[in-house]
């Protein structure tokens, strides 16, 4: 089992090196860093000096190696647009994104799994049909529209909740949190719902589909035939088997959450990394773009690792093939 996790870690490291190369290519080849730093009017001598200073006269492999070294030490370059080291920017923006995505994921799981189970077990009921219809609508309404409509209703018309920003935040060391103040929580509500809606609809339908498959499988039929109580059939034997594929897709959904957080943060002017990334793309702020790329890659590698480990925990078949006898 430990060997399995180690293999995955190594694979993840390989992926990171490749993405790192990509980020490096973006950060050096896109736009001329010398131009960016010195402006158009610098002399050739100044340019040459700058090139040497930046190590741009070195072979590619050496440059890449130095780049990786800088990245590992947290030196991600300086934002063209804001003139602030990217590392500081990310540290400043990270808490907002993590809290938003975390809350959205929580909403997705807390609502999606039970609703999926309900619609699978009470297949024909009116409430199930309503939930399924609503989920299809949830998959069809774009995230930005959901956000705008919520803003219009709750912030503009009713004026119950703020339409943008994080509200008051409290600093705990380098971390800023909006979870401890009333205004922070109120500010979080609409963006979190907006971000959760799509993945909630998706997860709900997925849980339902997988559970229905399992409930029609041979081993559940045999469990029924043995006279096991309905609760044990649905949850112990049904849900546990259905959760295996759900875990994979739910984790992949985290990737989508990352993508849609760009949208949500834009709609609500939420000071997180998604908004930072969008602005970086629009201003061609290369250091920020390449850093975001690296960070997204780390997130995906971690997500995949979590999926693999959860399989090891959940599925005895994988456990014995990876861990040996």
């Amino acid at each position, binding site marked *: 089992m430990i060997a399995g996790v180690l293999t995955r870690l190594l694979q993840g490291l390989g992926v990171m090196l490749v993405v790192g190369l990509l980020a490096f290519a*973006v950060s050096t080849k*896109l*736009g001329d860093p010398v131009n960016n730093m010195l402006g158009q009017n610098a002399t050739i001598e100044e340019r040459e000096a700058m090139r040497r200073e930046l190590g741009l006269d070195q072979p590619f492999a050496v440059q890449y190696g130095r780049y990786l070294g800088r990245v590992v030490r947290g030196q991600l370059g300086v934002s063209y647009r804001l003139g602030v080291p990217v590392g500081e920017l990310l540290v400043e923006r990270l808490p907002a994104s993590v809290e938003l995505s975390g809350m959205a994921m929580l909403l997705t799981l807390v609502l999606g799994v039970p609703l999926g189970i309900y619609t699978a077990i009470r297949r024909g009921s009116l409430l199930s049909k309503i939930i399924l219809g609503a989920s*299809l*609508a949830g*998959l*069809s*309404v*774009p*995230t*930005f*529209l959901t956000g*705008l*409509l919520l*803003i*219009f209703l709750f912030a*503009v018309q009713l004026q119950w909740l703020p*339409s943008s920003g994080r509200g008051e935040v409290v600093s705990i060391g380098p971390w800023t949190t909006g979870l401890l103040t009333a205004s922070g929580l109120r500010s979080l509500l609409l963006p979190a719902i907006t971000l959760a809606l799509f993945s909630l609809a998706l997860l709900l339908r997925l849980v339902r589909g997988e559970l229905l*498959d399992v409930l*029609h499988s041979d081993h559940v*039929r045999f469990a029924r035939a043995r006279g096991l109580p309905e609760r044990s059939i649905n949850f112990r034997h049904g849900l546990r088997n259905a959760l295996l594929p759900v875990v994979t897709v739910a984790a*992949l959904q985290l*990737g*989508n959450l*990352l*993508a*849609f957080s*760009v*949208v949500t943060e*834009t*709609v609500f002017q939420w000071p997180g990394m998604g908004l930072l*990334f*969008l602005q*970086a*793309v*629009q201003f*061609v702020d*290369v250091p920020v*773009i390449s850093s975001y*790329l690296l960070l*997204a890659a780390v997130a*995906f590698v971690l*997500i*995949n690792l979590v999926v693999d480990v959860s399989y090891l925990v959940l599925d005895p078949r994988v456990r014995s093939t990876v861990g040996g006898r």
Partner: protein
Amino acid sequence: MRLVRGLLEGTRRGTRVALLVVAAYVVLAAGARWVAPQPVQDLRSLDLMNSSLPPAWDADGRREFLLGTDEQGRDVLSGALFGLRLSMGVGFAAVALAMLIGLAAGLLSGYRGGWLDAFLMRIADAQLTFPAILVAMLLDGVARSVLPRSVHETLGIPVVIGAIALAQWVPFARAARVGTLVEREKGYVQAAQVMARPGWSILLGHVLPNVLGPIVVIATIGLGNAILTEATLSFLGVGIPPTSPSLGTLVRNGSAYLPSGAWWMVVFPGLALAGLVLAVNVAGDGLRDGLDPKQRSAVS
């Protein structure tokens, strides 16, 4: 025609209604030039005197602007129709491109097997984890930095189509691969190989009819996603140039006026978009259920 009838057989009534709605959207979008009350493509038709009018049924509304106007005096209904045309065009083009890439990769993967198969399927796995929106944003960022502004604007739409297609080819490839593997077991491929004819050319003719059902379903579901992705990118102001506004661009422009109560600029293009995607999704869902034998089985 037989395919159409085969797909419709055993589907629910809701599915057929949804297909009709999609067809109506297609007609409206294709005929935008003739249906739209105002030629909004032509900027000279706009009059700032007519800006930000509410819908016609409002006390301040005017009859010739049924769904109101935006801040430039553009008729919202006409704008939505032309936006629809662009959104659907991009959606269809992206799905068609994804289908081409996917079919080619799937056929190759299934026919050649071996390391090529393993390699292509590995890429497919990786592709699934990377969301289309991020891919498109990165591509757009790259395009912005290396291309002059004017070139970038003309390339905006192709870049968006390419990015969406890149995110969607995988299911097509999987279906084509499975279909190819099934067909390969049959004798005629070997026969073709003996006759030194390129097997894949025959394969294409045999695999396609067999996987056409799943492909149509994948394409339908993919179309909904493609339209959503394009709208989202346009809303973010990435890719599609603002000079040719899609539904997402219209919502983006209108959202600035939402706090002042001008809801119609956002709501109507938004509803048009959501209605289209909903109809496509319902149709895709229904077609899939109709194809899936598991859903039809009677005995548990």
